[in-house]
Protein backbone atom coordinates (compact mmCIF):
# COMPACT_ATOMS: atom_id res chain seq x y z
CA UNK A 1 0.00 0.00 0.00
CA UNK A 2 2.89 2.32 0.74
CA UNK A 3 5.24 3.75 -1.82
CA UNK A 4 8.68 2.24 -1.45
CA UNK A 5 11.38 3.96 0.51
CA UNK A 6 13.36 6.88 -0.80
CA UNK A 7 17.04 6.86 -1.57
CA UNK A 8 18.64 9.35 0.79
CA UNK A 9 22.02 10.77 0.02
CA UNK A 10 23.86 13.12 2.31
CA UNK A 11 27.05 14.45 0.79
CA UNK A 12 29.85 16.32 2.51
CA UNK A 13 27.47 17.95 4.93
CA UNK A 14 28.83 20.84 6.97
CA UNK A 15 27.04 22.63 9.73
CA UNK A 16 28.32 25.28 12.09
CA UNK A 17 26.73 26.73 15.19
CA UNK A 18 28.46 30.03 15.74
CA UNK A 19 32.15 29.21 15.48
CA UNK A 20 31.70 25.60 16.51
CA UNK A 21 31.60 23.04 13.70
CA UNK A 22 28.94 20.41 14.37
CA UNK A 23 29.01 18.43 11.15
CA UNK A 24 32.27 18.24 9.28
CA UNK A 25 31.89 16.81 5.82
CA UNK A 26 29.49 14.04 6.72
CA UNK A 27 28.55 11.47 4.09
CA UNK A 28 25.62 9.14 4.45
CA UNK A 29 23.98 7.00 1.83
CA UNK A 30 20.79 5.21 2.81
CA UNK A 31 19.41 2.80 0.27
CA UNK A 32 15.65 2.66 -0.32
CA UNK A 33 13.98 0.75 2.48
CA UNK A 34 17.06 0.62 4.63
CA UNK A 35 17.04 1.39 8.35
CA UNK A 36 20.20 3.14 9.44
CA UNK A 37 20.91 3.97 13.05
CA UNK A 38 23.20 6.85 13.96
CA UNK A 39 24.86 6.60 17.35
CA UNK A 40 27.46 8.66 19.11
CA UNK A 41 28.22 10.68 22.18
CA UNK A 42 25.95 13.56 22.99
CA UNK A 43 27.06 16.60 21.05
CA UNK A 44 28.51 14.54 18.21
CA UNK A 45 26.03 16.10 15.77
CA UNK A 46 23.64 13.20 15.33
CA UNK A 47 20.50 15.18 16.12
CA UNK A 48 21.72 18.05 13.97
CA UNK A 49 22.16 15.66 11.07
CA UNK A 50 18.55 14.58 11.38
CA UNK A 51 17.32 18.14 11.68
CA UNK A 52 19.17 19.14 8.54
CA UNK A 53 17.63 16.21 6.64
CA UNK A 54 14.21 17.23 7.97
CA UNK A 55 14.74 20.80 6.79
CA UNK A 56 14.61 22.26 10.29
CA UNK A 57 18.19 23.49 10.02
CA UNK A 58 20.04 24.80 6.99
CA UNK A 59 23.21 23.10 5.94
CA UNK A 60 26.31 25.23 5.85
CA UNK A 61 27.79 23.20 3.03
CA UNK A 62 27.16 19.97 1.22
CA UNK A 63 23.83 18.60 0.13
CA UNK A 64 20.95 16.37 1.04
CA UNK A 65 19.09 14.68 -1.75
CA UNK A 66 16.24 12.26 -2.07
CA UNK A 67 16.19 9.99 -5.12
CA UNK A 68 18.71 12.30 -6.69
CA UNK A 69 16.73 15.49 -6.16
CA UNK A 70 18.19 17.96 -3.71
CA UNK A 71 15.94 18.73 -0.74
CA UNK A 72 15.32 22.32 0.16
CA UNK A 73 13.32 22.86 3.33
CA UNK A 74 10.96 20.15 4.50
CA UNK A 75 10.03 17.52 1.95
CA UNK A 76 6.51 16.19 1.64
CA UNK A 77 7.78 12.61 1.62
CA UNK A 78 9.64 13.05 4.88
CA UNK A 79 8.18 12.75 8.35
CA UNK A 80 9.89 12.96 11.69
CA UNK A 81 9.27 11.56 15.14
CA UNK A 82 10.74 13.59 17.95
CA UNK A 83 11.93 12.64 21.37
CA UNK A 84 8.85 14.26 22.86
CA UNK A 85 5.62 13.25 21.18
CA UNK A 86 4.75 16.86 20.25
CA UNK A 87 1.05 16.15 19.98
CA UNK A 88 -1.37 19.05 19.96
CA UNK A 89 -2.79 18.87 23.48
CA UNK A 90 -6.03 20.54 22.36
CA UNK A 91 -6.79 18.07 19.60
CA UNK A 92 -8.14 14.58 20.07
CA UNK A 93 -5.90 11.60 19.42
CA UNK A 94 -7.62 11.00 16.09
CA UNK A 95 -7.24 14.63 15.01
CA UNK A 96 -3.59 14.48 15.91
CA UNK A 97 -3.11 11.51 13.62
CA UNK A 98 -5.08 13.27 10.88
CA UNK A 99 -2.68 16.19 11.13
CA UNK A 100 -0.11 13.95 9.47
CA UNK A 101 -2.06 13.75 6.21
CA UNK A 102 -0.46 15.19 3.13
CA UNK A 103 -1.13 18.84 2.45
CA UNK A 104 -2.88 18.16 -0.84
CA UNK A 105 -5.03 15.45 0.75
CA UNK A 106 -6.43 17.72 3.42
CA UNK A 107 -9.30 19.15 1.40
CA UNK A 108 -12.92 18.32 2.09
CA UNK A 109 -12.86 15.50 -0.38
CA UNK A 110 -12.23 11.98 0.86
CA UNK A 111 -12.34 13.08 4.47
CA UNK A 112 -14.10 9.86 5.47
CA UNK A 113 -11.41 7.80 3.77
CA UNK A 114 -8.79 9.78 5.63
CA UNK A 115 -10.45 9.17 8.97
CA UNK A 116 -10.66 5.49 8.19
CA UNK A 117 -6.96 5.46 7.41
CA UNK A 118 -6.17 7.28 10.65
CA UNK A 119 -8.28 4.81 12.62
CA UNK A 120 -6.52 1.93 10.98
CA UNK A 121 -3.16 3.39 11.99
CA UNK A 122 -4.36 3.83 15.55
CA UNK A 123 -5.47 0.20 15.53
CA UNK A 124 -2.00 -0.69 14.27
CA UNK A 125 -0.35 0.97 17.25
CA UNK A 126 -2.88 -0.52 19.65
CA UNK A 127 -4.81 2.63 20.49
CA UNK A 128 -8.04 2.09 18.59
CA UNK A 129 -10.14 2.72 21.69
CA UNK A 130 -8.45 6.01 22.56
CA UNK A 131 -9.21 7.99 19.40
CA UNK A 132 -11.41 10.58 21.09
CA UNK A 133 -9.23 11.05 24.16
CA UNK A 134 -7.11 14.12 24.81
CA UNK A 135 -3.37 13.45 24.54
CA UNK A 136 -3.05 14.61 28.15
CA UNK A 137 -4.78 11.40 29.20
CA UNK A 138 -2.18 9.17 27.60
CA UNK A 139 0.99 7.80 29.09
CA UNK A 140 4.36 8.67 27.58
CA UNK A 141 4.50 5.45 25.57
CA UNK A 142 0.96 5.89 24.28
CA UNK A 143 1.71 9.46 23.21
CA UNK A 144 4.73 8.27 21.30
CA UNK A 145 2.61 5.62 19.58
CA UNK A 146 0.18 8.32 18.49
CA UNK A 147 3.16 10.29 17.19
CA UNK A 148 4.23 7.22 15.24
CA UNK A 149 0.75 6.83 13.75
CA UNK A 150 0.75 10.52 12.83
CA UNK A 151 4.16 10.11 11.20
CA UNK A 152 2.86 7.24 9.11
CA UNK A 153 -0.37 8.96 8.08
CA UNK A 154 1.02 10.27 4.81
CA UNK A 155 2.84 7.04 3.96
CA UNK A 156 6.19 8.81 4.09
CA UNK A 157 9.05 7.43 2.07
CA UNK A 158 11.57 8.64 4.60
CA UNK A 159 10.99 8.49 8.33
CA UNK A 160 13.37 10.27 10.68
CA UNK A 161 13.41 9.16 14.29
CA UNK A 162 15.16 11.50 16.69
CA UNK A 163 15.68 9.48 19.87
CA UNK A 164 11.98 8.74 19.84
CA UNK A 165 12.20 6.28 22.70
CA UNK A 166 14.70 8.18 24.80
CA UNK A 167 12.15 9.45 27.30
CA UNK A 168 10.41 6.12 27.85
CA UNK A 169 11.01 3.58 30.58
CA UNK A 170 12.90 0.40 29.74
CA UNK A 171 9.88 -1.90 29.25
CA UNK A 172 7.91 0.57 27.18
CA UNK A 173 11.01 1.19 25.11
CA UNK A 174 11.40 -2.45 24.16
CA UNK A 175 7.70 -2.66 23.23
CA UNK A 176 8.06 0.45 21.12
CA UNK A 177 11.16 -0.93 19.41
CA UNK A 178 9.19 -3.98 18.41
CA UNK A 179 6.40 -1.78 17.13
CA UNK A 180 8.77 0.37 15.09
CA UNK A 181 10.39 -2.74 13.63
CA UNK A 182 7.04 -4.28 12.74
CA UNK A 183 5.79 -1.11 11.09
CA UNK A 184 9.02 -0.71 9.16
CA UNK A 185 8.96 -4.34 7.98
CA UNK A 186 5.37 -3.87 6.78
CA UNK A 187 5.96 -0.63 4.95
CA UNK A 188 9.60 -0.62 4.01
CA UNK A 189 10.12 3.11 4.15
CA UNK A 190 13.67 4.38 4.46
CA UNK A 191 14.47 5.26 8.05
CA UNK A 192 17.19 7.08 9.92
CA UNK A 193 17.16 6.45 13.65
CA UNK A 194 19.20 8.64 15.94
CA UNK A 195 19.71 7.10 19.33
CA UNK A 196 22.15 7.07 22.20
CA UNK A 197 21.25 3.54 23.11
CA UNK A 198 23.48 1.11 21.29
CA UNK A 199 21.23 -1.86 22.00
CA UNK A 200 18.37 -0.10 20.34
CA UNK A 201 20.50 0.57 17.28
CA UNK A 202 21.65 -3.05 17.12
CA UNK A 203 18.11 -4.34 17.59
CA UNK A 204 16.61 -2.27 14.80
CA UNK A 205 19.15 -1.19 12.23
CA UNK A 206 20.53 -2.75 9.08
CA UNK A 207 23.54 -0.59 9.57
CA UNK A 208 24.85 1.39 12.51
CA UNK A 209 26.85 4.50 11.84
CA UNK A 210 29.05 5.83 14.61
CA UNK A 211 29.26 9.57 14.47
CA UNK A 212 32.23 11.23 16.01
CA UNK A 213 32.81 14.97 16.13
CA UNK A 214 30.71 15.62 13.07
CA UNK A 215 32.05 12.80 10.92
CA UNK A 216 31.12 9.20 10.34
CA UNK A 217 33.90 7.28 12.06
CA UNK A 218 32.75 3.69 11.63
CA UNK A 219 29.91 1.80 10.07
CA UNK A 220 28.82 -1.57 11.40
CA UNK A 221 26.52 -3.72 9.34
CA UNK A 222 24.13 -5.81 11.39
CA UNK A 223 23.11 -8.95 9.57
CA UNK A 224 21.39 -10.90 12.34
CA UNK A 225 17.94 -12.19 11.41
CA UNK A 226 14.94 -10.36 12.84
CA UNK A 227 13.55 -10.28 15.42
CA UNK A 228 16.91 -10.08 17.10
CA UNK A 229 17.48 -11.79 20.42
CA UNK A 230 19.17 -9.40 22.79
CA UNK A 231 20.74 -12.17 24.82
CA UNK A 232 22.49 -13.80 21.84
CA UNK A 233 26.27 -13.70 21.72
CA UNK A 234 26.18 -11.98 18.36
CA UNK A 235 24.00 -9.21 19.69
CA UNK A 236 26.19 -8.63 22.73
CA UNK A 237 29.30 -8.75 20.60
CA UNK A 238 27.96 -6.16 18.15
CA UNK A 239 26.90 -3.88 20.99
CA UNK A 240 30.32 -4.11 22.60
CA UNK A 241 32.07 -3.47 19.34
CA UNK A 242 30.13 -0.32 18.64
CA UNK A 243 30.67 0.86 22.18
CA UNK A 244 34.38 0.34 21.74
CA UNK A 245 34.37 2.42 18.58
CA UNK A 246 32.58 5.25 20.31
CA UNK A 247 34.96 5.24 23.21
CA UNK A 248 38.04 5.02 21.02
CA UNK A 249 36.86 7.91 18.94
CA UNK A 250 36.85 10.18 21.94
CA UNK A 251 40.52 11.08 21.96
CA UNK A 252 40.77 12.79 18.55
CA UNK A 253 37.56 14.66 19.32
CA UNK A 254 39.23 16.49 22.16
CA UNK A 255 42.73 17.10 20.83
CA UNK A 256 42.03 19.39 17.84
CA UNK A 257 40.05 21.76 20.05
CA UNK A 258 43.11 22.49 22.20
CA UNK A 259 46.08 22.24 19.88
CA UNK A 260 48.43 24.10 22.18
CA UNK A 261 47.39 22.47 25.42
CA UNK A 262 49.98 20.49 27.37
CA UNK A 263 49.73 16.75 27.03
CA UNK A 264 48.68 15.93 30.58
CA UNK A 265 46.02 18.67 30.67
CA UNK A 266 44.23 17.34 27.62
CA UNK A 267 44.53 13.88 29.07
CA UNK A 268 42.69 14.92 32.22
CA UNK A 269 39.96 16.53 30.20
CA UNK A 270 39.60 13.37 28.23
CA UNK A 271 39.09 11.21 31.27
CA UNK A 272 36.54 13.61 32.69
CA UNK A 273 34.53 13.55 29.49
CA UNK A 274 34.67 9.78 29.46
CA UNK A 275 33.37 9.56 33.02
CA UNK A 276 30.33 11.70 32.31
CA UNK A 277 29.43 9.91 29.15
CA UNK A 278 29.76 6.43 30.53
CA UNK A 279 27.61 7.13 33.54
CA UNK A 280 24.84 8.51 31.37
CA UNK A 281 24.30 6.46 28.35
CA UNK A 282 26.98 4.09 27.34
CA UNK A 283 27.81 1.90 30.31
CA UNK A 284 24.31 0.68 31.33
CA UNK A 285 23.50 -1.21 28.11
CA UNK A 286 26.78 -3.08 28.33
CA UNK A 287 26.12 -4.12 31.92
CA UNK A 288 22.69 -5.33 31.00
CA UNK A 289 24.13 -7.28 28.12
CA UNK A 290 26.67 -9.04 30.31
CA UNK A 291 24.22 -10.09 32.95
Amino acid at each position, binding site marked *: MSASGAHLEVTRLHKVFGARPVLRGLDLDVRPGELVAVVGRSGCGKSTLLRVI*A*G*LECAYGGSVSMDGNPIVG*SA*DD*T*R*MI*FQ*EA*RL*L*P*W*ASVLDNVL*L*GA*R*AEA*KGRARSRERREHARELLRGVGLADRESD*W*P*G*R*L*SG*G*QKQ*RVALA*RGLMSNPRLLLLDEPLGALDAF*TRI*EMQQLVERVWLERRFTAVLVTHEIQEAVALADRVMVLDAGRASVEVRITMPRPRARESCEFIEATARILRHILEGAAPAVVPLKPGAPQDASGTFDVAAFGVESSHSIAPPLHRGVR
Partner: protein
Amino acid sequence: MSRVPSRSDAPAEGRTRPSDGRTAMWVSALVPVAALVAWSGSTTAGAVSTRVLPTPQAVVAATWELARSGELSRHVLISTWRALAGLALGGSVGFILGIMSGYFTLASRLVDTPVQMIRNVPHLALIPMVIIWFGLGEEAKIFLVALGVFFPIYVNTVHGVRSLDDGLVEMARVFRLGRAELFWRVVLPGAVPSILVGLRFALGLMWLTLIVAETIGADSGIGYLAMTAREFMRTDIVFATVVLYALLGKLADVITRVVERRMLAWHPSYLHGLGASGSTP
Protein backbone atom coordinates in the same frame (compact mmCIF):
# COMPACT_ATOMS: atom_id res chain seq x y z
CA MET B 1 -0.02 28.40 29.41
CA SER B 2 1.00 28.23 33.02
CA ARG B 3 -1.33 31.03 33.99
CA VAL B 4 -4.68 29.35 34.03
CA PRO B 5 -6.31 30.72 37.11
CA SER B 6 -8.32 27.64 37.95
CA ARG B 7 -5.30 25.43 38.30
CA SER B 8 -5.55 25.39 42.07
CA ASP B 9 -9.30 25.20 42.58
CA ALA B 10 -10.36 22.94 39.73
CA PRO B 11 -8.66 19.77 40.95
CA ALA B 12 -9.88 20.39 44.49
CA GLU B 13 -13.49 20.26 43.33
CA GLY B 14 -12.92 16.96 41.66
CA ARG B 15 -11.15 15.29 44.53
CA THR B 16 -13.11 16.30 47.59
CA ARG B 17 -15.91 14.02 48.66
CA PRO B 18 -19.42 15.51 48.74
CA SER B 19 -19.52 15.46 52.54
CA ASP B 20 -16.20 17.33 52.72
CA GLY B 21 -17.56 19.86 50.26
CA ARG B 22 -20.63 20.47 52.38
CA THR B 23 -18.62 21.02 55.53
CA ALA B 24 -16.26 23.32 53.69
CA MET B 25 -19.22 25.29 52.39
CA TRP B 26 -20.60 25.82 55.91
CA VAL B 27 -17.23 26.88 57.21
CA SER B 28 -16.75 29.41 54.40
CA ALA B 29 -20.26 30.73 55.03
CA LEU B 30 -19.53 31.44 58.70
CA VAL B 31 -17.92 34.86 58.33
CA PRO B 32 -20.47 36.33 55.87
CA VAL B 33 -23.38 35.07 57.98
CA ALA B 34 -21.83 36.51 61.13
CA ALA B 35 -21.32 39.85 59.38
CA LEU B 36 -24.92 39.85 58.24
CA VAL B 37 -26.17 39.13 61.74
CA ALA B 38 -23.99 41.89 63.19
CA TRP B 39 -25.17 44.32 60.53
CA SER B 40 -28.82 43.50 61.09
CA GLY B 41 -28.49 43.57 64.89
CA SER B 42 -26.68 46.89 65.13
CA THR B 43 -28.94 48.71 62.69
CA THR B 44 -32.31 47.40 63.97
CA ALA B 45 -31.29 48.04 67.58
CA GLY B 46 -30.49 51.64 66.64
CA ALA B 47 -26.81 51.46 67.55
CA VAL B 48 -26.00 52.72 64.07
CA SER B 49 -28.13 55.32 62.35
CA THR B 50 -30.02 54.02 59.32
CA ARG B 51 -28.82 57.15 57.53
CA VAL B 52 -25.30 55.77 57.70
CA LEU B 53 -26.16 52.12 57.31
CA PRO B 54 -29.56 50.86 56.21
CA THR B 55 -30.92 47.69 57.74
CA PRO B 56 -30.54 44.56 55.60
CA GLN B 57 -34.32 44.28 55.60
CA ALA B 58 -34.56 47.77 54.12
CA VAL B 59 -32.06 46.86 51.38
CA VAL B 60 -34.09 43.80 50.47
CA ALA B 61 -37.31 45.83 50.54
CA ALA B 62 -35.79 48.55 48.34
CA THR B 63 -34.54 45.97 45.86
CA TRP B 64 -37.95 44.36 45.79
CA GLU B 65 -39.65 47.73 45.28
CA LEU B 66 -37.32 48.61 42.41
CA ALA B 67 -37.79 45.21 40.84
CA ARG B 68 -41.58 45.45 41.06
CA SER B 69 -41.74 48.87 39.46
CA GLY B 70 -39.59 47.72 36.55
CA GLU B 71 -36.95 50.36 37.35
CA LEU B 72 -34.44 47.72 38.29
CA SER B 73 -34.56 45.74 35.07
CA ARG B 74 -34.44 48.93 32.99
CA HIS B 75 -31.26 50.14 34.66
CA VAL B 76 -29.65 46.71 34.78
CA LEU B 77 -30.36 46.18 31.10
CA ILE B 78 -28.91 49.49 30.01
CA SER B 79 -25.80 48.95 32.17
CA THR B 80 -25.34 45.43 30.85
CA TRP B 81 -25.67 46.68 27.30
CA ARG B 82 -22.98 49.30 27.87
CA ALA B 83 -20.71 46.77 29.51
CA LEU B 84 -21.07 44.24 26.74
CA ALA B 85 -20.75 46.79 23.95
CA GLY B 86 -17.54 48.08 25.49
CA LEU B 87 -16.25 44.56 26.00
CA ALA B 88 -17.01 43.57 22.43
CA LEU B 89 -15.32 46.66 21.04
CA GLY B 90 -12.24 46.78 23.26
CA GLY B 91 -11.96 43.01 23.44
CA SER B 92 -11.99 42.45 19.70
CA VAL B 93 -9.50 45.25 19.02
CA GLY B 94 -7.27 43.91 21.79
CA PHE B 95 -7.55 40.37 20.49
CA ILE B 96 -6.78 41.23 16.86
CA LEU B 97 -3.89 43.53 17.71
CA GLY B 98 -2.62 41.00 20.23
CA ILE B 99 -2.62 38.18 17.71
CA MET B 100 -0.85 40.33 15.12
CA SER B 101 1.65 41.65 17.60
CA GLY B 102 2.39 38.17 18.88
CA TYR B 103 2.63 36.63 15.44
CA PHE B 104 4.36 39.19 13.24
CA THR B 105 7.58 40.92 14.14
CA LEU B 106 6.68 44.03 12.19
CA ALA B 107 3.31 44.38 13.92
CA SER B 108 5.00 43.85 17.24
CA ARG B 109 7.41 46.71 16.57
CA LEU B 110 4.61 48.98 15.39
CA VAL B 111 2.01 48.20 18.02
CA ASP B 112 3.56 46.63 21.06
CA THR B 113 5.93 49.37 22.19
CA PRO B 114 3.34 52.20 22.12
CA VAL B 115 0.70 50.01 23.76
CA GLN B 116 3.07 49.02 26.53
CA MET B 117 3.78 52.71 27.09
CA ILE B 118 0.14 53.75 27.27
CA ARG B 119 -0.70 50.75 29.44
CA ASN B 120 0.85 52.40 32.47
CA VAL B 121 -1.63 55.28 32.32
CA PRO B 122 -4.78 54.47 34.33
CA HIS B 123 -7.53 54.59 31.76
CA LEU B 124 -9.86 56.36 34.17
CA ALA B 125 -7.49 59.31 34.08
CA LEU B 126 -8.91 59.95 30.63
CA ILE B 127 -12.42 60.66 31.92
CA PRO B 128 -12.20 64.47 31.58
CA MET B 129 -10.84 64.04 28.05
CA VAL B 130 -13.50 61.52 27.16
CA ILE B 131 -16.24 63.86 28.37
CA ILE B 132 -14.84 66.60 26.15
CA TRP B 133 -14.68 64.26 23.18
CA PHE B 134 -17.97 62.46 23.54
CA GLY B 135 -19.99 64.53 26.03
CA LEU B 136 -22.03 62.52 28.50
CA GLY B 137 -23.66 60.25 25.94
CA GLU B 138 -23.45 56.50 25.53
CA GLU B 139 -20.26 56.74 23.48
CA ALA B 140 -18.26 58.07 26.40
CA LYS B 141 -19.14 55.13 28.65
CA ILE B 142 -18.67 52.51 25.96
CA PHE B 143 -15.36 54.05 24.99
CA LEU B 144 -14.12 53.98 28.56
CA VAL B 145 -15.14 50.37 29.05
CA ALA B 146 -13.55 49.43 25.72
CA LEU B 147 -10.34 51.15 26.74
CA GLY B 148 -10.37 49.39 30.09
CA VAL B 149 -10.82 45.89 28.69
CA PHE B 150 -8.46 46.42 25.75
CA PHE B 151 -5.24 46.17 27.76
CA PRO B 152 -5.71 42.89 29.63
CA ILE B 153 -7.01 41.18 26.50
CA TYR B 154 -4.21 42.56 24.36
CA VAL B 155 -1.40 41.78 26.79
CA ASN B 156 -2.57 38.24 27.48
CA THR B 157 -3.20 37.47 23.82
CA VAL B 158 0.34 38.56 22.94
CA HIS B 159 1.66 36.48 25.81
CA GLY B 160 -0.37 33.47 24.71
CA VAL B 161 0.87 33.61 21.13
CA ARG B 162 4.48 34.20 22.11
CA SER B 163 4.64 31.48 24.72
CA LEU B 164 3.71 28.86 22.17
CA ASP B 165 5.77 25.68 22.39
CA ASP B 166 8.53 25.84 19.75
CA GLY B 167 8.44 22.07 19.51
CA LEU B 168 4.92 22.24 18.13
CA VAL B 169 5.90 24.84 15.56
CA GLU B 170 8.76 22.61 14.41
CA MET B 171 6.43 19.67 14.25
CA ALA B 172 4.08 21.75 12.12
CA ARG B 173 6.95 22.52 9.76
CA VAL B 174 7.96 18.90 9.32
CA PHE B 175 4.33 17.96 8.80
CA ARG B 176 4.06 20.77 6.30
CA LEU B 177 1.12 22.62 7.75
CA GLY B 178 0.18 25.69 5.75
CA ARG B 179 0.20 29.15 7.27
CA ALA B 180 -3.55 29.17 7.82
CA GLU B 181 -3.55 25.70 9.31
CA LEU B 182 -0.63 26.61 11.54
CA PHE B 183 -2.58 29.56 12.86
CA TRP B 184 -5.98 27.92 13.37
CA ARG B 185 -4.77 24.57 14.64
CA VAL B 186 -1.60 25.41 16.55
CA VAL B 187 -1.14 29.10 17.36
CA LEU B 188 -4.67 30.13 18.27
CA PRO B 189 -5.65 27.10 20.38
CA GLY B 190 -2.32 27.39 22.16
CA ALA B 191 -3.07 31.00 23.05
CA VAL B 192 -6.60 30.35 24.33
CA PRO B 193 -5.71 29.63 27.98
CA SER B 194 -3.86 32.91 28.21
CA ILE B 195 -6.60 34.80 26.35
CA LEU B 196 -9.17 33.52 28.82
CA VAL B 197 -7.04 34.77 31.70
CA GLY B 198 -7.12 38.14 29.97
CA LEU B 199 -10.87 37.90 29.60
CA ARG B 200 -11.34 37.38 33.31
CA PHE B 201 -9.22 40.39 34.14
CA ALA B 202 -11.15 42.33 31.50
CA LEU B 203 -14.52 41.46 33.03
CA GLY B 204 -13.43 42.84 36.37
CA LEU B 205 -12.24 46.05 34.74
CA MET B 206 -15.42 46.21 32.67
CA TRP B 207 -17.71 46.59 35.70
CA LEU B 208 -15.25 48.81 37.53
CA THR B 209 -15.01 51.22 34.61
CA LEU B 210 -18.74 51.23 34.10
CA ILE B 211 -19.47 52.06 37.75
CA VAL B 212 -17.17 55.04 37.60
CA ALA B 213 -18.45 56.20 34.23
CA GLU B 214 -22.09 55.92 35.25
CA THR B 215 -21.57 57.73 38.52
CA ILE B 216 -19.98 60.67 36.77
CA GLY B 217 -22.47 61.33 34.08
CA ALA B 218 -25.49 59.28 33.10
CA ASP B 219 -29.26 59.47 32.99
CA SER B 220 -29.77 55.74 33.30
CA GLY B 221 -27.98 52.64 34.50
CA ILE B 222 -27.05 51.24 37.88
CA GLY B 223 -24.55 53.99 38.60
CA TYR B 224 -27.19 56.63 37.88
CA LEU B 225 -29.59 54.81 40.19
CA ALA B 226 -27.01 54.96 42.98
CA MET B 227 -26.27 58.64 42.43
CA THR B 228 -29.91 59.75 42.46
CA ALA B 229 -30.52 57.63 45.56
CA ARG B 230 -27.64 59.44 47.22
CA GLU B 231 -29.30 62.79 46.57
CA PHE B 232 -32.38 61.60 48.50
CA MET B 233 -30.27 59.94 51.19
CA ARG B 234 -31.77 56.58 50.23
CA THR B 235 -28.90 54.50 51.59
CA ASP B 236 -31.01 51.38 51.16
CA ILE B 237 -31.06 51.88 47.39
CA VAL B 238 -27.35 52.74 47.30
CA PHE B 239 -26.67 49.47 49.07
CA ALA B 240 -28.97 47.62 46.70
CA THR B 241 -26.91 48.87 43.74
CA VAL B 242 -23.69 47.70 45.39
CA VAL B 243 -25.19 44.25 45.85
CA LEU B 244 -26.33 44.38 42.23
CA TYR B 245 -22.85 45.13 40.96
CA ALA B 246 -21.48 42.31 43.07
CA LEU B 247 -24.02 39.89 41.62
CA LEU B 248 -23.34 40.97 38.02
CA GLY B 249 -19.61 40.64 38.56
CA LYS B 250 -20.06 37.19 40.02
CA LEU B 251 -22.31 36.19 37.13
CA ALA B 252 -19.69 37.26 34.60
CA ASP B 253 -17.10 35.24 36.46
CA VAL B 254 -19.28 32.14 36.54
CA ILE B 255 -19.90 32.41 32.80
CA THR B 256 -16.17 32.62 32.04
CA ARG B 257 -15.53 29.61 34.25
CA VAL B 258 -18.06 27.61 32.27
CA VAL B 259 -16.53 28.80 29.00
CA GLU B 260 -13.08 27.94 30.32
CA ARG B 261 -14.15 24.49 31.36
CA ARG B 262 -15.54 23.83 27.90
CA MET B 263 -12.71 25.33 25.88
CA LEU B 264 -9.89 24.04 28.06
CA ALA B 265 -11.22 20.53 28.59
CA TRP B 266 -7.91 19.32 27.18
CA HIS B 267 -5.84 21.31 29.64
CA PRO B 268 -3.99 19.29 32.30
CA SER B 269 -5.61 21.21 35.14
CA TYR B 270 -9.08 20.21 33.97
CA LEU B 271 -8.08 16.71 32.90
CA HIS B 272 -6.76 15.88 36.32
CA GLY B 273 -9.60 17.67 38.02
CA LEU B 274 -11.97 15.19 36.43
CA GLY B 275 -9.95 12.32 37.82
CA ALA B 276 -7.85 11.13 34.90
CA SER B 277 -7.55 7.39 34.70
CA GLY B 278 -3.76 7.62 34.47
CA SER B 279 -3.60 4.45 32.44
CA THR B 280 -0.33 2.79 31.56
CA PRO B 281 0.55 1.03 28.33
